[in-house]
């Protein structure tokens, strides 16, 4: 499903070039459960951003379902993000002035889906995450775990093939974190490709496939750094 070939990403920080990703080759099958681990600054988030089309590699090719998405325009990439990729963030990134249901509806709203068609999809996505009774609550009225569940509902409402999670439990207590992981894993078991960045080895080990980044390069995941 995903093919990365010779992906490089370098920034310049204060005039110094920094190589965040160094010649990454990676294939990920559809329906995989992959964890990306590594110390901070190793390029985990950069890799996830490139997989999510939020960032462009400096060089190399990224093929999604056989199509080279690195060559797409901004507009086309936005459409791919909207239709085929779901994001779950560490900071949840819910819009505070909107209710849970309105937050979940955002991707559909951006795609121009009519309100009549939107409502059942939003209700279903919230229901599946046991948040049906909190649909009209504002984020500030929800606990951290509940907020992340709303965020997951938002990521899945468009039924994407790929779910990208960046430290999804980083801001949650242990119990809520476990619950969120279980939800993500159950989504994966229904066929959605799950890629999760984490620095928690315990979380990382749950994935069926693990990769580790060190200084922007792929490393053996079982060797401690």
């Amino acid at each position: 499903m995903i093919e990365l070939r010779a992906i490089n990403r370098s920034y310049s920080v204060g005039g110094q070039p920094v190589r965040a990703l160094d010649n990454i080759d990676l294939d990920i099958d559809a329906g995989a459960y992959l964890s990306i681990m590594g110390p901070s600054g190793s390029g985990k988030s950069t890799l996830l951003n490139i997989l999510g089309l939020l960032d462009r590699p400096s060089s190399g090719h990224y093929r999604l379902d056989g199509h080279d998405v690195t060559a797409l325009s901004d507009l086309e990439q936005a459409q791919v993000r909207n239709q085929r990729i779901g994001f779950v963030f560490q900071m949840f990134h819910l819009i505070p002035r909107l209710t849970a249901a309105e937050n979940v509806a955002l991707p559909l709203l951006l795609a121009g889906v009519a309100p009549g068609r939107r409502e059942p999809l939003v209700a279903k996505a919230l229901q599946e995450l046991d948040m049906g009774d909190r649909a009209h609550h504002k984020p500030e009225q929800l606990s951290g775990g509940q907020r992340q569940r709303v965020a997951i509902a938002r990521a899945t409402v468009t039924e994407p093939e790929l779910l990208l999670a960046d430290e999804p439990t980083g801001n949650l207590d242990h119990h809520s974190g476990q619950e969120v992981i279980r939800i993500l894993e159950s989504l994966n078991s229904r066929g959605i490709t799950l890629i999760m960045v984490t620095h928690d080895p315990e979380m990382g080990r749950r994935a069926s496939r693990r990769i580790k980044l060190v200084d922007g390069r792929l490393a053996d995941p079982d060797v401690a750094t």
Partner: protein
Amino acid sequence: MRAGDLLRLTSSSLVAHRLRTLLTILGISVGIASVVLLTSIGEGVHRFVVTEFSQFGTNLVGINPGKATTAGTSIGVFGTARPLTLDDAEALKKLPFARAVVPMVTGNAEVEADNRRRRTTIYGVGPQMPEAFRMELQLGRFLPADEPSAPRAFAVLGSKLRRELFGERSPLGERITIAGSRYRVLGVMASKGTILGFDLDDTVYLPTARAMALFNTQSLFEIDLLYAEHTSVEKVVAAIRQLLESRHGRDDVTITTQQQMLDVLSSVLDVLTFSVAAIGGISLLVGAIGIVTIMTIAVNERTNEIGLLRALGARRSQVLGLFLGEAVVLAMSGGLLGLALGVGVAQLLHLLLAALPVRISLLYILLAESVALLIGLLAGVLPARRAAQLDPVAALRAE
């Protein structure tokens, strides 16, 4: 994105910051209100002045002796302009379009009646004056159509002069004395009020020939000619000029049409209205700066949200539209509030000061609203462009 969703999303952020939204709207509305109010007063004064001037009718032509142009050589070389005479007036009466012709002289003299004396304005006029100037009589009748060169000694009083000389007593048939000559009062004019400081009621109307003798003048001060409706002014002016040129041997009169006077007056008043509108425009500019400020703050505060929307598949143009929409909603609500405020205050002024003419012009209202829309777009475009250009990764990471 659907228009309704865009509007809802836009208003949700405006509602979330009620106070500052309200203050920004207030800023714009003060600008719009001042434009509406000032132009209303401007238009009101315009209408008022034009109505005052056209109360004598718009198809009037004034003919004065002498040429109102500046030539290289003094007119004196060829002799002074020939006077306008009663015969000229009689000749003008024969023009086919002439409905009324009023030969006129004016001056001041003392009027005496019943041992009361008053210095007043004397108008020597022809019998057709009420028709030409749309003036009405309050009592009696106007000067009769006597032989123009030898009219009988009759007088008609202005309403104020009648009150001053006779009080509430009927002056009809009474005698008044002007410079030693006695006149019999035939009628009293209805009140006309004042125009530009001239009291039109403190007057005596005498037959022209008698007034010319009184002031010892050979020339009329002016001949006013009322022409038939639906006649072109140009034709009227050309015919008068031709007639008088053939009688005088040369073109030595100045012809002023009421329309010309109104046009000049109107254009002066338009400039006035435009100037006050420009003053109102300055406060509008201040309101616009308020929108730029608040939108810049909004983009900074909501950087995370912009990153999120981009991650969820928002195009740059959608982000641009959201923030531009917010600025436009702010400006347009300010415009509507300002309109209500302006119209309200204008009506209130009209109630409190009935003398102050207020006229709300639809043109300026539409203009004010379009300006509000334009301000929203202009004020919003910079912050909104900045929002659209943000890098999504950096925006998501921003604190």
